[in-house]
């Protein structure tokens, strides 16, 4: 996956997890929770969706890597480098 594809994969998950939010306005360098309504159960949903969609395990010690879009991409891109974005 390219950087843009990883970003799109995260956006797809956020659209499902936070269906009332406008995810198109997310700024990549800002904290996600400061931009859209996400609580700890939502973060667990993100972790679950990464597991279901990409078979990626995010250990609790790495949860802070999911804080912003930039940090998400940086953390996930190496794990997704051989993967294709589902059409």
């Amino acid at each position, binding site marked *: 996956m390219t950087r843009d594809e990883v970003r799109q994969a995260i956006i797809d998950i956020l659209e499902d*997890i*936070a269906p*009332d939010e406008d995810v198109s306005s997310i700024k990549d360098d800002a904290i996600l929770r400061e931009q859209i309504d996400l609580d700890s*159960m939502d973060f*667990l*949903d993100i972790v*679950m969706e990464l*597991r279901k969609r990409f078979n990626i395990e995010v250990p609790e010690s790495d949860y802070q890597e999911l804080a912003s879009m930039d940090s998400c991409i940086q953390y996930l891109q190496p794990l997704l480098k051989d993967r294709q974005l589902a059409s």
Partner: protein
Amino acid sequence: MNNRLGAEKRIVITGVGLTAPNGNNLNEFRKNLLLGKSGVQKFETRYVGEVLAGVCNFNVLKYQKKKELRRGTRAGSIAIYCCQEACNDAEINLESIDRSRIGVYLGVTEHGNVETENEIYNISKYDYDTKFWSHHHNPRTVANNPAGEVTLNMKITGPHYTIGAACAAGNMGVIQGIQMLRLGEVDLALAGGVSESIHTFGIFASFKSEGALAEHDDPTKASRPFDKNRNGIVCAEGGGVYILERLSDAKKRGAKIYGEIVGYATNSDAFDFILPEPGRQAECMRLALKKSGLKPSDINILNTHATATQVGDIQECKAIRDVFGKEKSVWINNTKSFIGHTMGAAGTLELSGNLPAFEDGLVHQTLNLDELDPECHLENIVAGKPKQLGSVDYIMNNSFGMFGINSVLIVKRHAI
């Protein structure tokens, strides 16, 4: 007896919120009951396939965000819709009252089956690896879930819980509300019952295995209480919630009063897991009459529990004959014939459909009663079309459930 109670102990209904398979508010529901419009349709359910069910179509986004819907349960959603609608109907502005003095008491037949089945189906797609089991499972399946979702949505900080009471649960929610108001524990009760049961395949499969699941080529004719050709229950979802207040409080704020709950009773058959026992059902009706200070001939409308099972209908009719004999002033109807069995919601929902009789004097009919089973003979079953009584003063509502849990409510027209 109730006339001897002070206004601070007399409990009145001042708001109704409901969703039924044939109506999403009291006016619509009542209109369709008088028109003879069924709410039963074909319904696809996991593993069992096509079944018949009463399905609600209320606007789920009227009071909830999409995220609340995703996280919560269908029972929670039904409960929120009904509680919000009841508050609106009672003209209660939540912003201006003390929400720590509101109690939420909701009856449920069962809770958690839907969510558990969904999770097992979910992990079946991952070779039953439980690391794919949702962290939402526990909050979705705790027994207080539907009432708890209401408190989050409406920011109510008073007590909340569900009352597990099989198919007597709707009435039991109301009984709980009455008791808490009389004890002074709360000043306002959101009381009634909800059901999401059609979303569990297990309830259909279990009734089918029991030989008690209704079948008919025409879904609208499948629910046939008292009819010779009845062949079982039509499962339905729904909710019915009342605003209950002490008469003194209702008068103080000039509330519209639907009626006063002058009597209630609940008891147990102590007889069988599923089979009803007419002797105890009759006792329950008599106890409610005694508590109300009424005699059988005072009742104008008796809304029956009958679910269209072979045995259950006959047993309830035996109990009614025992209490009411050949009394001709009592008119009898059944709401499940329109909407199926709304399980935990049945008591409140079915009573709701009859409350407008205090104003219009009409008894809604029993649908699909084409050929009365002789064993279900009662003096005055209303069938074919509504019956105009002119004036209605007392309504009795029966709701019975598995393990022989019986409940009866008696509501009186409120004289202004």
